[in-house]
């Protein structure tokens, strides 16, 4: 080939082209992001994983809300409907002279406030204990505390979240409203009304 004049003429540009291509490859190889086979579909699977992590947290919140509601109701029942903040130590027990019995019958608002206060305490205690093990070191899942406006509808307790549950990752910021709608088995206000009938 080297003895062939035509071939020698072609050899030079080919060699030059290969040199340029090699330099181009070398320069670009170091400047681009490292490619890994798992990168294919990484963003999509990350989104699905994050969504599932949020769903698990929502399930935890639902169950925690249910247990907290039961504990709150038990607590109020154990106190026999006592509402110390309106000056009554025990409403259903012995009749007290002062303040009058009528003052001791809590209004719906007082029942609601007492329930909300206890419920928030119990729910916060549950939520503080939640840990998502699938997160990396620089990732976090935040469940806001003292976050609910409660609404009683028939036998249901609805918690409307003020702030969103957030999952922060390197490339994903996921946020969802952690409201809940749980069946507590009875109407709280009717239950209380029946105490005083």
């Amino acid at each position, binding site marked *: 080939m080297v003895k062939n004049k035509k071939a020698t003429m072609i050899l030079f540009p080919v060699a030059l082209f290969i040199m340029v291509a090699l330099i181009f490859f070398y320069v670009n190889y170091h400047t681009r992001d490292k490619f890994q*086979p798992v990168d294919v579909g990484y963003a999509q699977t990350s989104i699905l994983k994050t969504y*599932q992590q949020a769903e698990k947290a929502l399930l*935890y919140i639902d169950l925690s809300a249910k247990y907290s509601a039961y504990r709150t109701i038990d607590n109020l029942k154990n106190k026999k409907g006592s509402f110390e903040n309106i000056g009554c130590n025990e409403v259903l027990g012995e009749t007290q002279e002062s303040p009058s019995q009528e003052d001791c019958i809590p209004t719906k608002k007082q029942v609601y406030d007492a329930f909300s206060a206890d419920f928030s305490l119990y729910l916060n205690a549950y939520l503080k*204990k939640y840990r998502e093990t699938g997160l990396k070191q620089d990732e976090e899942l935040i469940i806001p505390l003292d976050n609910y406006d409660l609404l009683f509808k028939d036998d249901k307790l609805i918690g409307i979240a003020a702030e969103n549950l957030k999952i922060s990752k390197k490339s994903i910021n996921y946020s969802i409203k952690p409201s809940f709608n749980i069946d507590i088995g009875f109407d709280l206000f009717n239950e209380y009304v029946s105490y005083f009938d």
Partner: protein
Amino acid sequence: MKHKTLFRRLAKSKKGFDDLADIVIGLIFIALIFIVVFVYITSTEIRIEKAIKEEQNNLEKDYILLNYLRTPMEGKDISIAEYLGSLSRKELEEGMAFNGICYEGKASGVIKEGLVTKETKEILQGISNWQVKMLISGGKEFCSISKDIKKQKEGHASGETARAVIPSNDPGFNIEIYFTKG
């Protein structure tokens, strides 16, 4: 016949022989490059496929785990998660000793399955190889179910695939449930 004559003529002249050698070397080079590139691309594709399949399986297990926890238990008005949450620490700890939550004991040589086991097996019957473990957070396992009860004690978990935390009615502890590759 024509080709044979051509090759014979090429081989006889020195210049022709050089050209033929160049062509053969070129062809070998091209074939080698083609084989290397083909093998590289194929192996990369296989690795990508494997990684995606594994990721897909893990995602699927996460969905199944969530559905499993939300499934209502037969004969009860509550879901599996609520049933587990309704058990006291003592009941769970007793369960640790002889897997009491999963298996209620032996009746005429056959292990009698507990409520959770029946439900689990029914829900996971479509999955070829599974193992479910339940434990008190930071504590010991109180229940371990696998597809084949006989292999229950022999089964080795080879990596966690999906995990969920559920609260207990007793605020002192949480319950963790995870799937492992059987």
